[in-house]
C-alpha cells in the first residue's frame, strides 16, 4: 500500500487483545500524519442501565463489563459503594480482598505474559504454535494461570464473574484450612514466577524509551490493590474523590475516540509499568531482588519491558498471597450489613491493566441514580496513540509487513482490554 512516497499501516483485526479493535497509521516517509486505534466493539451502555438498579447488584452487573478482569470491576464497585454508604469493613475482609486480587493478577498476568505477549517476541502467531517448540514453558504458564484461577474460584466461587464478593464483605468467607490447601501450589508458583522474570528478561527489546507520566495508586505500607492515593511522577497526589477534577476525557476529531488526559498536561500511562515505577519500594524483598538481578529498576521507560514488569508483579502476587494466607483468620461475620442510604462514593483500584475508577450516586432506597466508570484501557488509549506516532516513525526502514507486526506488538504491550474500554470510547462504524 505504498503510494506517493507514503504508506499506511493497517491492522483490521487486532489479535491477542481482549475485544475488537483495529489499528490505522498513515505515514509520508518518516512522518506519521495519522494514528487511529479504532474501536469497533459495539457499545453496551452499562452506565445507562445501572441507573435504577439496587447498589447490591452493581458488583455482579459491572463484572460483566470484562470477562478477563471481573474482580477489578467488583472491587472498584464495592469500594465506591461502601464509601457512599459509609461502611467500614473488617480487617479480615480487607485481607481477603487483597488475596482475591492476587488471584486475578496471577491469572491475568500469566495469560498475558505467555499466551498473548510472548509469541510476539519469539516470532509465533500464537501460543499454540509456540507450544510446539516450547511445550514446557507453555505447560508452566498454564499451571501458573491455573493457581491464580484456583484462588479466585475458592474466594469467589468461579473464575469468571465470581459470585461471592459483596458490598460489606463476602457472601461466604473461606475456612483457614481451605486456604492452607493452596500453599504448596503457591510456593511452586512463586518459584515459577521468579523463573518468569529471568525468562522474560532474556527476550529482545526494541530500543524505545518515552517520557511517560506514570499514574498509579500508592499506599503507605503496601503495593497497591484497593486503597491509596492516586499519584504520578509529575506531582499528582489526590484522593479518588478528586479524580474527575484532575482528569478529563475529550474528543479528538480525527480519532473519533474519547481519550483520557491529565487536565492541563496530556496523555498518561497506567498499569504494571506505572505501578512498578511508583511503588518499587513497597514490593516485597523477593520481588525487588528478582527485578534488580535482571537489571530492572525504576524508572523503566521502555514499554516493551512491561512483560518483565508483569513477571515481577507475578512474584509479588504469589508472595502476597502466601503472606495473606499465613496471617488469615476468618472474619467473625463475612459481610457487614449495608442498609439503604443516600450518598455518593468514588473508588479507584488497580486492575491488572491499571487503575479503574468507579463513581456511584445512590438514593435513599439504595437505587443507583448515576454511575461513572473509567477503565484502564480508555485511560491508556491516548498514550497508545502517542507511542505509535513515535514508534511508527522509527520503523520507516522496515517492510510494511514487519512494521505492521511491530506496531501490533507495541499495542499488545499495553495488554489492552477493548471490551472494557468500549463503554467510553466513541465507536465509529465506517461505511463506504
Amino acid at each position: 500500500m505504498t503510494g506517493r512516497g507514503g504508506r499506511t499501516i493497517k491492522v483490521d483485526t487486532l489479535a491477542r487483545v481482549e475485544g475488537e479493535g483495529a489499528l490505522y497509521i498513515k505515514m509520508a516517509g518518516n512522518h506519521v500524519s495519522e494514528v487511529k486505534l479504532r474501536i469497533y466493539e459495539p457499545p453496551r451502555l452499562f452506565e445507562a442501565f445501572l441507573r435504577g438498579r439496587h447498589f447490591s447488584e452493581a458488583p455482579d452487573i459491572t463484572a460483566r463489563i470484562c470477562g478477563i478482569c471481573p474482580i477489578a470491576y467488583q472491587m472498584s464497585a464495592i469500594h465506591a459503594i461502601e464509601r457512599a454508604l459509609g461502611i467500614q469493613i473488617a480487617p479480615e475482609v480487607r485481607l481477603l480482598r487483597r488475596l482475591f486480587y492476587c488471584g486475578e493478577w496471577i491469572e491475568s498476568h500469566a495469560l498475558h505474559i505467555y499466551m498473548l505477549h510472548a509469541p510476539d517476541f519469539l516470532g509465533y502467531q500464537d501460543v499454540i504454535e509456540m507450544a510446539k517448540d516450547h511445550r514446557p514453558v507453555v505447560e508452566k504458564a498454564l499451571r501458573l494461570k491455573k493457581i491464580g484461577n484456583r484462588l479466585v474460584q475458592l474466594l469467589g466461587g468461579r473464575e469468571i464473574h465470581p459470585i461471592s464478593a459483596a458490598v460489606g464483605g463476602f457472601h461466604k468467607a473461606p475456612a483457614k484450612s481451605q486456604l492452607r490447601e493452596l500453599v504448596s501450589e503457591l510456593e511452586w508458583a512463586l518459584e515459577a514466577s521468579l523463573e518468569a522474570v529471568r525468562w522474560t528478561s532474556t527476550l529482545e527489546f526494541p530500543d524505545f524509551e518515552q517520557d511517560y507520566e506514570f499514574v498509579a495508586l500508592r499506599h503507605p505500607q503496601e503495593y497497591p490493590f484497593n486503597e491509596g492515593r492516586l499519584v504520578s511522577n509529575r506531582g499528582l497526589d489526590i484522593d479518588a474523590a478528586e479524580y474527575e477534577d484532575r482528569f478529563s476525557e475529550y474528543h479528538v476529531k480525527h480519532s473519533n475516540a474519547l481519550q483520557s488526559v491529565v487536565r492541563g498536561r496530556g496523555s498518561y500511562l497506567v498499569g504494571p509499568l506505572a505501578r512498578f515505577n511508583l511503588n518499587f519500594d513497597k514490593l516485597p524483598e523477593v520481588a525487588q531482588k528478582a527485578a534488580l538481578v535482571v537489571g530492572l529498576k525504576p524508572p523503566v521507560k521502555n514499554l516493551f519491558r512491561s512483560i518483565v514488569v508483569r513477571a515481577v508483579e507475578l512474584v509479588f502476587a504469589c508472595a502476597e498471597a502466601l503472606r495473606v494466607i499465613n496471617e488469615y483468620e476468618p472474619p467473625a461475620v463475612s459481610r457487614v450489613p449495608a442498609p439503604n442510604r443516600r450518598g455518593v462514593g468514588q473508588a479507584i483500584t488497580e486492575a491488572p491493566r491499571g487503575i479503574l475508577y468507579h463513581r456511584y450516586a445512590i438514593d435513599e432506597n439504595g437505587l443507583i441514580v448515576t454511575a461513572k466508570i473509567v477503565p484502564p484501557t480508555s485511560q491508556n488509549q491516548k498514550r497508545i496513540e502517542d507511542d505509535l506516532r513515535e514508534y511508527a516513525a522509527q520503523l520507516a526502514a522496515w517492510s510494511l509487513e514487519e512494521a505492521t507486526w511491530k506496531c501490533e506488538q507495541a499495542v499488545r504491550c499495553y495488554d489492552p482490554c477493548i471490551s472494557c474500554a468500549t463503554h467510553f470510547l466513541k465507536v465509529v462504524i465506517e461505511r463506504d
Partner: protein
Amino acid sequence: MSSDSKRKAPKAQAKPKIGVFKFASCDGCQLCLLDAEDELLGVVGAVEIAYFPEATRTMLKGPYDIGLVEGSITTHHDAQRIQEIRRKCKTLITIGACATAGGIQALRNWKDVDEFVRAVYASPQFISTLKLSTPIAEHVPVDFELRGCPINKYQLIELLTATLVGRKPNIPTYSVCMECKRKAAVCIAVARGVPCLGPVTHAGCGALCPSYDRGCYGCYGPMETPNTASLTSQFRILGQSGDQISRAFRSFNAWAWQFRKASEECERA
C-alpha cells in the same frame, strides 16, 4: 534416500476447523476455552483453531466445521456479519447469555436506547446501535445454545467433544434445584427464606450461589419449563416488592422470553 521414505505418507485426516466469533459481550465465554488449563493443549491438538482473534494472529477463511459465537446482536453491521458467519459454519453453537438471550445489554430493550446513548456518550451522533440487543437465534438458525454467564468450561468441552464425534451432548436442562439436591445442600429458600431463582434457572453452574450462602440470581437463564408465576408468588410471600422481583428476572438473561414475561407481569401487577 531409502525406498521407504519415497513412499507417500498416508494422507493425514484434516482436523476439524473451529472459528470463534465475538459480538457484543465481555469476552468471558471465549476465555473459558483458555481457562481450561488442563484440557487446552488436548483440545487444540484435536482441532484446528482457524479463527480466534483473542488467541491468535492466524485468521483462516471459512468454511468452518464448528463456529462458536459469543455476544449479542446490537448493530446493523453485526446483524449482517452473523448471516455471513452462519453461511460459513457447518455447526453453529452460541456460547453464553449474550448470544443465547441478548445479555445484560438487553436491558436497553425496555428503554429508549437513544436516551441511553446520550447518557453514556458525549457525542451520540457517532454511535450506531440498534434499539434491541437480541440473541443469535433471532437472526439465524442455531444448532446448540450453551447457557450461562459465563458458560461452564466443562460443558463447553463436553459439547465440543459430542459435536466432533456426532453424539448428543450430555447437558442437562433441569433446574439449579436439582444441582442443590445432588450436593445434599440445605435449601436456603425454604430453610432461611432467601429469595432464590434456583427453581426456574437452568442448571450448569453446580448450584454455586446457594453453596456460597446467597440466592441464585439466574445467570444460566430459564430452565426448560420454568414455573415463574409460582416463584413470583413465593417471592412476594418472602416480602419482595414487584420492582425487586422484576429486577431479579431482568438481569443477564432478561430477554429470554420466560424471564421477560415474568418481569413484565411483575411490573404490571
